[in-house]
C-alpha cells in the first residue's frame, strides 16, 4: 500500500510540475506574438488543444467498453480530429496570406507603376 501510494504521489507531483512549467512556457512563448498574428495564433493554439484526441484513442483501447461508451468515444475521436485537422489547415490558409507579402510587394509596385504610366 505504501509503495502504491508513494508511486501515485510521485506521478501526481511529476505531472503537476509538468503542468505548471507548461503554463509558464505558454506565457513566455506566446506573449511575444505580435498583435497582427493573434487570429492565426488563436487558430493555431485551437488546433493544438485538439490533442484531446489522444484521450479518446487511449480510452478506446480499454477492455470491456459497452456500446454507448464506444459510440461516445467514436464521436470524441471525430471531434478531436476535426479540431486538429481543421485547426491546422485553417491556420495554414491564414498564414499563407501573410507569408510572401513584404518581399514581392516591392516588385509588385514597380510593375503597377510601369503598367499605369
Amino acid at each position: 500500500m505504501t509503495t502504491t501510494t508513494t508511486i501515485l504521489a510521485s506521478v501526481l507531483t511529476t505531472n503537476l510540475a509538468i503542468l505548471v512549467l507548461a503554463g509558464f512556457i505558454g506565457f513566455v512563448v506566446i506573449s511575444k506574438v505580435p498583435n497582427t498574428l493573434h487570429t492565426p495564433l488563436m487558430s493555431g493554439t485551437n488546433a493544438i488543444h485538439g490533442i484531446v484526441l489522444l484521450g479518446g484513442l487511449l480510452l478506446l483501447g480499454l477492455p470491456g467498453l459497452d456500446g454507448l461508451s464506444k459510440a461516445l468515444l467514436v464521436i470524441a475521436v471525430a471531434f478531436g480530429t476535426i479540431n486538429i485537422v481543421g485547426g491546422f489547415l485553417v491556420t495554414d490558409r491564414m498564414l499563407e496570406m501573410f507569408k510572401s507579402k513584404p518581399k514581392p510587394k516591392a516588385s509588385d509596385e514597380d510593375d503597377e507603376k510601369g503598367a499605369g504610366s
Partner: protein
Amino acid sequence: MIGLPLASTFLQDESFIYVLYIIAFALFIQGLRGLAGPTTAVRGNRIAAVGMGIAVIATLLNPGEGNWGLIALGLALGVAVGVPAARNVKMTAMPQMVALFNGVGGGAVALISWVEFRHYGSTYGSHWVLASESGILVPIGKGTTGSGISVSVGGVPTYVAIFSVFAAIVGSISFWGSNIAFGKLQEVIPGRPISFGSAQQVVNLVLLILALAAGIALVNGAHSELLFIGMLIVAALLGNAVVLPIGGADMPVVISLLNAFTGLSAAATGMALNNPALIVAGMIVGASGSILTNLMATAMNRSIPAIVAGGFGGGGAVAGAQGAGEHAGTVRSTSAADAAIQLAYANRVVVVPGYGMAVAQAQHAVRELTKELEKRGVEVSYAIHPVAGRMPGHMNVLLAEADVPYDQLKEMDDANPEFQRTDVSLVIGANDVTNPAAKNTPSSPIYGMPILEVSDSHSVIVIKRSMNPGFAGIENELYFDPKTAMLFGDAKSAVSEITAELAQL
C-alpha cells in the same frame, strides 16, 4: 524473423512512447515560437502539426490499444468533416470557424470524461485505500503488498476523479458556449444580447454552484451516471447562459476565453490519463488563451468578469437608444462621386476597416481603390484597431488576403499620431472603434476604451449600411461631426463605385 517482434516490443515500450510525446510537445513549443513572426509563422504552424502527428502515432503504438475499426471510423469522420470545412471557409467567416473548432474540442473533452466515469466512476471516492479496508469491490487495477497478501487497489486515485470531473464541466461549458458564439457570429442567433436581465448573474451563479455540487458529489463517490449526465447538462446550460447575454462586440474575448478553457480542460484530461502530451499541449493553450483574452479585454476597456457576468451588453443597448434620440437628423450624407473627388485630391488617406468590410467581403474592392489612389500619388495606409472586426488580427488576415502590403498596415499606437496630418480618413464598416465618446463622454459604456482617433483628421468619410448602432449598441458621435460625410451602402459596392468614379476623374 526475430527482428519484427523485437522491433514491435521496442516501439511499444512505454519509455519509447514517452520519448515520442516529449518530441511532440517540444515541437508544439517550437511551432508556437515560430508563430511569433510573420515570416516564420507558416513553418511554425507546420512544425506544430508534425508534433501532433507524432503524438497521435505514439498513442496508437500503446500496447493496450484496440478497437481499431472504431478508431479508423472516428478519424475518418473527423477528416471528412474537418478538411472540407477548413478548405472552404471564407476568410471572413474565420472567427466562427475558430469558435466551432474550439467547441468540438471541448465536446471531445466532455465525452472522454463521461466515458472515464462510465469506466472508472464506480470507484470514484474510494481514495486509493485497499479494498479490504474500504470494503469496495474493485473492477480494475490490482496489486500486491510487500507482505504478499493479494489486494485490490481501490480504483482510480481521487485526484484523477477530480481532474476528470473538472474536465467534464469545463469541456461542456466550452462546447455549448462556443456553439452559441458560432451561432451569433454566423447570425443564426441574433447578435444582440439575450438575457434574463438582472436575474442573469443569479442564474449563472446557481448553475455554477449546481455543477460544482454535482462534481463534488461524484468525486466523493456518488456512483450515479444520471448525476454525471445531469452535471454535463447543467454545465451546458451554464455555457449557454454565459454566452447568450454577450453582445457581438465582446465575442472575440469570449472565443478566446473559451479557447483557454478548452486548453485547461485538455490539460485536466491529461492529468487524469497521466498523459504528458495532453498536459503540456493543453496547458500551453490555456496560458496563451488567457493572455489573448486579457489583451483583448484591455483593448476594449472591459474587465473579463464584467463580460462574463453579462454586465455590459444590456446597459449599452439602453444607452444607444437614448443617444439616437438626442442626435437624430444632424448627419451629412455624401455620394460616391463626391467621395472620389475628396479622395483623389488628398495627399494622405488612412483606411479604417471594420467588421462591415469583412461582412461585405470588400477587402479586394478596398485594395483596388487604394491602388487607384496610389497611382495618383496619394499616400495610403491602413489603421487597424486591435479589436476591429471580430478578433484581433482579423483585419490583417483579410487585407493580407487582398494583397495589401504588410508595411501599410499600422497598428493603433502608430496610426493615432498620424491622423492629425491625414486629409481623409476612410472608415469602412468600422464603428465602435472610432467612437470619440470613448475619449470624451465619461457616461458612455465604452468610455476609456482606446480608439482610433479618426476625428483628428481633416475630414472623414464613413461607409456604412445604415445609421444602426454597432455591436456595442451605442451611437457614434463621429457621424454627427460636421467634417464627417456618410456614404450609405454596402461596403463592397460603395467602394467599387468610388473606384469607378475615380477612374473617370
